[in-house]
């Protein structure tokens, strides 16, 4: 496969002018941003700002009305379904758990690579991710018996087995307790760094975003309000986006948002 090596000039992912509407209701209006390899980008905004729609438009689960996405120099929308799945993986907000084992659920990430049957490398790659994420002990358990945190890790593992360049996460912490929220986000942060994956993650908790993300895409009414590093997340921005007065305070060298 010929693809440009992502650099500052050639970002890993380049989103240009994504617009989408449900019927007459315009949900996204010309959203554009770039992200580099290894960066974690938080997508922030209030309910209905278009966060989930944006990431499902980026990976073409939904076809946007207009716009384009370039991944590692290639037009993402022009790729075949399989090619797209090899470049970008996705963990939905709510995962449907059913009667299959953790191993088989993770193995599903090899789906874009499986022609007729499994190869030994598919099993090997699954085992590598399972070991890396410390899931060995329950890999033969049924996923419908897992706790929310465990299930979320399994879904992340499946997304990683897909060997993506870009990983999309839709509110990965929404059903988790505080300990698991931090465990999942910290893992996502590390994996982006160590394996040069760009992560786009929809988050509700701005303090979490500030702690684990590098860039911050703030959406307001389907438009980009601001996009930049932590300095772009200001008390004014939080007020404009969420409509709440807050203070951004420094605790042990970390920025934390406190709602007034």
């Amino acid at each position, binding site marked *: 496969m010929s693809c440009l090596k992502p650099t500052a000039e050639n970002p890993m992912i380049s989103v240009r002018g994504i617009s989408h509407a449900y019927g007459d209701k315009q949900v996204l209006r010309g959203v554009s941003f770039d992200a580099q390899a290894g960066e974690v980008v938080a997508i922030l905004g209030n309910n209905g700002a278009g966060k989930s729609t944006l990431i499902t438009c980026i990976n073409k689960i939904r076809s946007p009305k207009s716009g384009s996405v370039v991944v*590692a120099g290639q037009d993402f929308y022009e790729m075949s379904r399989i090619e797209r799945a090899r470049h970008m993986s996705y963990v939905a907000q709510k995962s449907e758990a059913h*009667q299959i084992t953790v191993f*088989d659920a993770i193995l599903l990430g090899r789906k874009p690579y499986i022609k007729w049957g499994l190869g030994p490398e598919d099993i090997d790659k699954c085992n590598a991710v399972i070991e890396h994420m410390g899931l060995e002990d329950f890999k033969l358990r049924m996923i419908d018996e897992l706790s929310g945190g465990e299930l979320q890790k399994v879904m992340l593992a499946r997304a990683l087995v897909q060997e993506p360049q870009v990983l999309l996460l839709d509110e990965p912490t929404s059903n988790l307790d505080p300990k698991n929220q931090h465990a999942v986000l910290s893992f996502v942060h590390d994996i982006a760094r160590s394996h040069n994956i760009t992560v786009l993650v929809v988050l509700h908790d701005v303090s979490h975003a500030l702690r684990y993300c590098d860039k911050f895409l703030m959406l307001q009414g389907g438009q980009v309000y601001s996009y930049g590093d932590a300095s772009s997340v200001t008390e004014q921005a939080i007020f404009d986006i969420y409509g709440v007065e807050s203070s951004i305070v420094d605790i042990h060298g970390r920025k934390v948002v406190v709602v007034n």
Partner: protein
Amino acid sequence: MASNSYHKEHDHRSDSRHGLDHSHTHEHDHYGDYRRYIARKWVFLFVLLALLAAVIVVSASVGSSGISVLEVARALVGGGEETSRTIVWNVRVPQIATGIAVGIALAMAGAVMQNVLRNPLASASTLGIAQGASFGAAVAIVFFQAGVQLGAASAVTHTITSPYLVVIFAFLGGIATTAIILLLSRVAGVSPTSLILAGVALSALFTASTALIQYFADDVRIASIVHWTFGSLSRAGWTEIAIIFAFNAIAFVYFTYNRWNYNALESGTATAKSLGVNVDSLILVGMVVSTLISAVAIAFVGTINFIGLIAPHIVRRFIGNDYRFLIPASALMGAVIILVADIASRTIASPALLPIGALTSFMGAPLFLYLIIRQGKQGQA
């Protein structure tokens, strides 16, 4: 590709962390675990196959002519007395082959419909597809002279004179229902749960239409339809059996080819799409193929309900929801259930034959209710 480095890097790290040998054996163990787990599923398939073989032998030896199991076994391999061989090969073997073919068709169709419609209650009979197919076949019999009743007193002399016409009409009746179901779920956005309610309405519509046809048909044809709607494994000849098996074979290859897609779809539509699955075509083709094999089976044996519901659910209890195994295991289980029902239909009120369709409904209806209760509880949770 940049991301391909993930596993190489990881392998490298785990090597340096654990030492090469240790990590190697560790990984080997993982392999073993999973292999053993998969081996258990294969064992289940072979157990089902053995069960089917046993049921075949029992089925071949149950009947009014009083041939012993041993004699049946001899006749099956071409030995024994001439009369035994004639009875076994001309009467019982075709009936068993019909049962197997129909069981496979209905069970595979049920397993796939439950997946693509995202509803565990889906099957040809619960969606009204079976009733639509029955109606289509009735139209062929009454208006296009596709079937005649050779002697109203005898149960086995009903003949379909134009099997192809009956199949085509049964398929048209079934696919009309499928089209409505798909329009409701895909275009009108009806929830998977409500689809079963739509199935109830469609079943009632087609059952009423079949009754209406009977009202206008002559006596001979009424007898023909009434007998036909009971469902019986004894009316299909070798041509019909071959037709059902041929369609089953094509469907089996198609379903097996898509087994990973069905597994992906179990994780939800969005996840399946993100894994590169063409969800729309998977649903559409899956429903059309399922309808086709159900309709072909129903066209030749009449209405036999609930096989598509019972078989996949029993199998899921043992091997989970993995379509790599669920499709062949459901097929085998469907064949086993229908043969068991057939044995029961020939022995419970012997020498009278009970309609097999009634017996499968007696098995299926309680399971259907149980599944509704379970689904309701999950909905509340």
